[in-house]
């Protein structure tokens, strides 16, 4: 039972706001230690080459150099990886992209380390490089890894695809592509590694999923998990981006700390980060859709190729999310989807807010508008005919047994934006003006949490101290999304105490059990449930002590207003502090661990079917744009974004997620592109890798929908990622409405709007 409901659904001040706005918060690069060395990386000089020799003699002799390590110095496994063990923190036999390290240096200053790196001489035998995943799938393509260039092939099968097309009046085929983008967090990657006297390796830094990093470090360092401590510093943004790359940095710094016996800081420059850190997967997507003249979709056949780059990283999981959701939130009786994740010699790709959805949403939502146009229908009308409803069956054969709110999201956004009126009015007004107005929409459904791609469980500890203060620890991390505040609200609600009584403990692998990664928009629904269980568990012990004192049944008690009281007679109560004393006197343990395991779900990889996720969220975004067809400039004037979150535990945080996700998607839609030519990154800093400024984002109207979900704490589901998957296609559809130009490749930059294709600069900028 909900004890102190008032705080759920409110937006108290962020629990960590003060330290952040005053500048007191300590980020990775603030963690200077006495005797600390600085590390630098000797990067690969070819995107694909055999390493013949690495000469480190001159570097080692340089004054101020403490250690130079190569692959030969790796104490444990040469590589780590989530499923495929292929990512080498220091490359041994071969380099596979320009972000690979062939050696790492630790020195007294960064300048000496940099100088030492320039003295390392490496001999290579250059190998033919693969830079387009479609080339990498050709039978005669050179091999990047021994087991072949295919990382994974996932499929979804439903019904009878031939029968589906036979039932169609028309078959429409379209191809789309999306680019490689960077997380562009404000803080590039940084770690400090050192050994405790007991032999424990501690790595502090800008970590996201601390337990993933711990297992990578443990393997590569040849240390037991219990002797590796990963501690998260205040994080300057992550968006999915500080996992594998942080494992790489942690291993490199760990090896140097071991060699020197001193703390080692490894801090990436922006250029290092753009070259080295993993990106969002570029996709090539081919859709073939059967429709009847009345607008009903009969079949979809989809083929996608994802560029995984040099290492597998999260490619299996990212592409699995794509294969599940590829048809969009529509009823499609006959489905055949194939997604291929492929190695290339580009920068590897992995987790990025959205995780395999921004790509496909761009394709299927552009496509919905294109089909509507072919049928002579309005985009809204066509979607309404096909969208999913309660108890419908998804492409993977799952029955949706919760409130399916995509229709509701369409209704509220279209009415809030004045959709019908603007769709009719803008084309009439456009002929007389330079800047053409347009309005477009996109909607989606999204499986919550990890899904059937793995076991999904997480834990939390809540402790009540003798003075009435309380602390909470979880293995999930704050990265600006507001997790500490949400979890503190849950504890406050369950214990009936003010939120300022609650302290959030550091995120440290030595403090709590492995609760999985902080990904997949799972923290509130999974972590929140674990926190709630822990808080209830410790509360029950207080109730036990109080029930004896008041001589009532524990079930008749509630905790509220810093008291434990009788539900039906609040005048009979014991103060929270007194209840603690009573419990401690009787020897009760006022620390409780909560563990939450997701409801059962399944996936049959062979059959391409399953109940992929235990619940789904639904959303719709509308973008109003103005386009200058002569220069190609697109301005996003206003966005309406409706997201069903189940229950908004903290509405301001939900809105914050929507604003951030929309801004990210505007960058994806209009500006951002990590350009690579033959494996060489050309966008080397933020002067060339352009993300939107506040002046480019337009007004965002965040609309929160709440349809209670039985699996979430207080009915809450999730919000983080769906916010980032919709605006790019909404913009593309709006640009079409404004200009009649259909652009099927992202980003919609100046050149694409004017010419229909992008310009390729011939000049190379090699590192």
């Amino acid at each position, binding site marked *: 039972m909900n004890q102190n409901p008032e705080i759920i659904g409110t937006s108290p001040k962020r629990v960590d706001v003060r330290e952040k706005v005053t500048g007191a918060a300590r980020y990775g690069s603030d963690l200077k230690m006495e005797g600390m060395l600085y590390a630098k990386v000797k990067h690969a000089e070819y995107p694909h080459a055999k390493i013949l020799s690495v000469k480190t003699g001159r570097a080692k002799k340089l004054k101020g150099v403490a250690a130079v390590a190569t692959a030969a110095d790796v104490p444990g496994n040469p590589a780590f990886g989530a499923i495929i063990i292929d990512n080498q923190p220091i490359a041994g036999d071969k380099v596979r992209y320009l972000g690979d390290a062939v050696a790492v240096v630790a020195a007294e200053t960064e*300048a000496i380390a*940099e*100088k030492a790196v*320039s003295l390392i001489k490496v001999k290579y035998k250059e190998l033919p490089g693969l830079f387009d995943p479609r080339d990498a799938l050709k039978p005669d393509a050179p091999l990047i890894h021994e087991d072949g260039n295919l990382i994974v092939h996932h499929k979804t099968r439903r019904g009878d695809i031939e029968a589906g097309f036979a039932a169609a009046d028309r078959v429409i085929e379209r191809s789309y592509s999306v680019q490689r983008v960077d997380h562009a967090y404000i803080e590039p990657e940084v770690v400090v590694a050192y050994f405790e006297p007991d032999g424990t390796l501690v790595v502090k830094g800008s970590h996201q999923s601390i337990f993933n990093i711990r297992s990578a470090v443990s393997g590569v360092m040849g240390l037991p998990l219990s002797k590796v401590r990963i501690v998260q510093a205040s994080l300057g943004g992550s968006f999915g981006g500080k996992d594998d790359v942080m494992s790489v940095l942690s291993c490199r710094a760990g090896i140097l700390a071991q060699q020197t016996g001193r703390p080692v800081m490894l801090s990436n420059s922006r250029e290092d980060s753009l070259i080295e850190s993993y990106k969002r997967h570029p996709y090539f997507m081919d859709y073939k859709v059967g429709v009847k003249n009345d607008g009903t979709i009969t079949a979809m056949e989809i083929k996608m190729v994802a560029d995984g780059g040099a290492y597998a990283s999260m490619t299996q999981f990212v592409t699995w999310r794509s294969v599940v959701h590829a048809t969009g939130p529509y009823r499609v009786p006959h489905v055949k989807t194939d997604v291929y994740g492929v190695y290339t010699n580009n920068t590897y790709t992995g987790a990025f807010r959205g995780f395999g959805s921004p790509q496909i949403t761009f394709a299927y939502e552009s496509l919905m508008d294109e089909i509507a146009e072919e049928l002579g229908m309005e985009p809204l009308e066509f979607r309404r005919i096909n969208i999913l409803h309660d108890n419908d069956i998804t492409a993977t054969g799952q029955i949706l047994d919760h409130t399916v709110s995509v229709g509701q999201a369409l209704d509220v956004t279209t009415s809030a934006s004045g959709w019908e009126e603007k769709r009719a009015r803008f084309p009439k007004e456009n002929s007389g003006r*330079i800047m053409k107005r347009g309005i477009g929409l996109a909607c989606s459904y999204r499986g919550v949490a990890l899904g059937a791609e793995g076991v999904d469980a997480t834990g939390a500890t809540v402790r009540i101290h003798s003075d009435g203060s309380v602390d909470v620890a979880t293995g999930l991390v704050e990265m600006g999304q507001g997790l500490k505040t949400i979890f503190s609200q849950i504890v406050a609600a369950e214990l009936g105490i003010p939120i300022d009584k609650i302290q959030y403990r550091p995120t440290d692998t030595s403090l709590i059990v492995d609760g999985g990664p902080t990904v997949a928009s799972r923290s509130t629904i999974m972590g929140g449930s674990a926190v709630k269980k822990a808080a209830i568990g410790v509360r029950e012990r207080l109730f036990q002590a109080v029930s004896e004192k008041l001589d009532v049944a524990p079930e008749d008690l509630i905790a509220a207003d810093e008291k434990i009281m009788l539900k039906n007679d609040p005048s009979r109560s014991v103060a929270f502090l007194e209840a603690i004393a009573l419990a401690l006197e009787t020897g009760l343990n006022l620390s409780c661990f909560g563990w939450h395991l997701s409801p059962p779900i399944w996936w049959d990889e062979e059959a391409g079917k399953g109940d992929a996720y235990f619940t789904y969220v639904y959303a719709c975004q509308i973008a109003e744009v103005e386009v200058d067809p*002569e*220069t*190609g*400039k697109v*301005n996003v004037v206003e966005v309406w974004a409706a997201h069903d979150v189940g229950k908004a535990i903290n509405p301001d945080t939900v809105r914050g997620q929507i604003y951030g996700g929309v801004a990210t998607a505007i960058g994806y839609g209009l*500006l951002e592109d990590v350009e690579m030519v033959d494996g060489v990154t050309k966008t080397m800093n933020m*002067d060339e890798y*352009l993300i*939107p*400024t*506040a*002046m*480019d984002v337009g007004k965002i109207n965040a609309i929160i929908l709440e349809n209670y979900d039985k699996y979430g704490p207080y009915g809450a589901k999730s919000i983080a990622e769906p916010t980032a998957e919709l605006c790019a296609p909404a913009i593309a559809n709006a640009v079409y409405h404004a200009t009649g130009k259909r652009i099927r490749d992202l980003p919609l*930059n*100046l*050149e694409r709007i*004017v*010419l229909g294709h992008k*310009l*390729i*600069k*011939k000049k190379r900028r090699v590192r």
Partner: protein
Amino acid sequence: MIPFNLERAESLEQALEFLDRDGTEVKIIAGGTDLMVELREISPGEKGPGTVLDITPIDEIRGIKDDGSTITVGALTPHREISSSPIILQYAPLLASACSTVGAAQHRNIATIGGNVINGSPAADSVPALVALNAEAVFQSKSGERVSLLKDIYLKPYQTDIKDDEILTAVRFPRLPEGATSSYIKLGRRNALAISRMNVAVVLVIKDGEITEARISPGSTTPTPDRITTAEELLIGKEPSEELFRRAGQAVSEEMINRSGRRWSTPYKEPVIAALTARALGEAAGEGV
């Protein structure tokens, strides 16, 4: 980044003295918004300046003066001051508008017009406006003053004819003629903090419905900044019209191709500079065109 000595000049005389003594390895720093980026990109082992000379204390070369016919803008004047100066807003509004588009507020407060001019980026925002104003660059060295038409100091992108012992002290230009109108249009990829993809500055004098003077100065278009006289000549003696301005825009893109040849970016730039020019002329000509 490489290490360097930092020297500070308290007066113009001191600065010129210093440059005279040590001619080759010194880099002048004003706002530093170009220079610091440049220095950061020099890796150890590569050649860079041994000394950076900070001239920001030199008040004599900062500020805006108007003697009734000529306006002089000290090299150290930051963009923010220019874009809000009543003198500039009245007699050279296109320069105010150009300077108001540089970077973001943080840059405009510290970055100087002198730095913008000497850095020599083809995308520099103030330069096309200065060229349209027929501005001169004023250099000073121990041996005296040198004055050059601003457009003539550019040898190629990022290179001017400034000598090792010279400082740019000011840019100066005549007030716009009576009745002149002007416009500056910048096209960036973003609405703030964006380098010009292309830009254009124009000045028009229209008397009795007839164009009597026209200046067209596009940026990121020709290898060095210049007025496009072939386009200007088209306009003289004509009645302003949308059609006429389109033809002038066309002439600018033809001249761009004449001077730069067809490059990887030409398919985009060709129609766009024509459109921007036509638009700027329309804006300058005002209502009714």
